[in-house]
């Protein structure tokens, strides 16, 4: 048991867990026909059946409750602050499964030339808003109320003493919905992590339906008809948002150090490492020279890399791997799409550079731009 916990602690370190999750992601949510074939071959599409769903939930919920036997794990998840986050994550899992089940159901129906589940015959009688829908909403509202009342009685509110400006709690955590941002702030300038990236992620996700305007598969749940965009959406949502919230909420302890789920939150955990800027890495370590005084010269390598990332890679992909996609999308849509994708990619890339070569900032112009 101890050994197993130790392994889980090691594997959940972001450098491992994020990589594994990112690779596994494309097999579970295939963006292209090639991945889709693998998805079938590995039987991953069975996840979205009733049986697969029961198994999935049993594993996750069972694993969760088994883990609460561990005092360190329990200490974190049972904090009144964290209970709703855990509930929410289960909710996310369930609704993800439910939507995927409906989509895969429809995919199968369409493959065998049936109409999708949501299809209604125009000659059938319609359901009225009043009273049918309003009743359902009323019942839902009453149930929500009951759940909230029960919750407020059963669980004490996490109230603390009056705020004291000279005393920062350690770790100092944002509310749960900002934890993804707080986690991003570890890697980027506040301006980028706090404003640019959230805006890009949120608006990028919102923009996807307007970039993919193909009419097929709209009006009902379906996956394989617009797999690329659903897959990308889920990537942004699950890995760049939910994953970061999980890490921020449950795995960041004192001094914002990383702690595995069964690790004790030790204030004195020592993480020996020194971050280094890209400029120092190239000029000092590689070229054996002192850092140039001129900021632009100093940061030139990082700037060039960034330029390649945003300005060279997209057109290059457009004429090679994504040729068909490019001609289908046209200039504007392709440019918007690529900009959003490349921006979204900088996040995992930067995280990896931090984890592997301890990179502090690729381009570091203090006060202006740190990436």
């Amino acid at each position, binding site marked *: 048991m101890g050994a197993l916990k130790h392994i889980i602690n090691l594997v959940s370190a972001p450098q491992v867990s994020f990589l594994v999750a990112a690779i596994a992601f494309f097999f579970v949510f295939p963006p292209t026909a090639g991945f889709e074939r693998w998805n079938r071959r590995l039987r991953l599409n069975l996840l979205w059946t009733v049986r697969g769903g029961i198994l999935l939930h049993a594993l996750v919920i069972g694993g969760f409750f088994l883990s609460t036997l561990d005092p360190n794990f329990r200490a974190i998840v049972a904090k009144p602050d964290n209970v709703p986050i855990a509930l929410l994550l289960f909710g996310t899992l369930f609704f993800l499964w439910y939507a995927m089940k409906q989509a895969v159901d429809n995919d199968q129906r369409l493959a065998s030339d049936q109409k999708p589940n949501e299809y209604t015959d125009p000659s059938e009688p319609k359901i009225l808003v009043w009273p049918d829908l309003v009743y359902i909403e009323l019942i839902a509202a009453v149930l929500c109320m009951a759940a909230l009342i029960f919750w407020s009685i059963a669980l004490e509110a996490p109230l603390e003493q009056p705020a004291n400006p000279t005393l920062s709690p350690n770790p100092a955590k944002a509310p749960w919905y900002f934890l993804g941002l707080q986690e991003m*702030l570890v890697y980027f*300038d506040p301006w980028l992590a706090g404003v640019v990236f959230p805006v890009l992620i949120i608006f990028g996700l919102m923009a996807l339906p307007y970039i993919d305007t193909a009419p097929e598969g709209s009006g009902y749940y379906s996956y394989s008809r617009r797999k690329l965009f659903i897959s990308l959406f889920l990537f942004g949502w699950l890995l760049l948002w939910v994953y970061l919230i999980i890490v921020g909420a449950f795995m960041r302890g004192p001094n914002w150090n990383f702690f595995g789920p069964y690790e004790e939150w030790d204030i004195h955990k020592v993480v020996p490492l*020194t971050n280094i800027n890209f400029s120092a890495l190239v000029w000092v370590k590689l070229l054996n020279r002192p850092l140039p005084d001129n900021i632009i010269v100093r940061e030139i390598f990082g700037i060039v890399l960034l330029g390649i990332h945003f300005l060279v890679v997209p057109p290059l992909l457009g004429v090679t791997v994504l040729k068909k996609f490019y001609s289908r999308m046209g200039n504007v849509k392709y440019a918007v799409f690529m900009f959003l994708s490349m921006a979204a990619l900088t996040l995992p890339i930067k995280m990896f550079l931090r984890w592997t070569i301890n990179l502090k900032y690729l381009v570091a112009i*203090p006060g202006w731009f*740190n990436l």
Partner: protein
Amino acid sequence: MSNEENANPKCDRRDFMGKAGVSAFLTAMGLAGAGSLVGLSPSVLPDPSKQLKIGPPQDYPSGTVRVFDEEKVVVISDDEGIYALSLVCTHLGCVVTLDRGSGQFDCPCHGSKFTMEGEVTKAPAPRSLDRYEVSLLPGGQMLVDQGVRLDSGEKLKV
């Protein structure tokens, strides 16, 4: 209402209401946007008196580390002299804590770490902790001036 109003083919009443609504909306947004520009200049100026008397140098034998919670300053004395660092993280302004065991400052918010000299060892903080001038007053007291930031690693020699 008379029929004459509808006689104008370019703009009937419905159109007019729509246009009026849109222009009212745009005006409101424009004014709000212009108003928000005010926010660019800080309305509260940082209070000027930021000088802290910390007692005579004899109170600070080499190896002393004294934290002034209220002022968010730490005064450190080592073999080379006495210096004062700000405890405000240069990333987003959380207050760093001193870990006496490992001899470094840790930020509770995003995990920046600083050496005892204030240098960043772990990102995201973009630059070192601010270093304030420490001077000796005629009366033998030392004064930390939070208005004067030092760029180099100067220390007060005693």
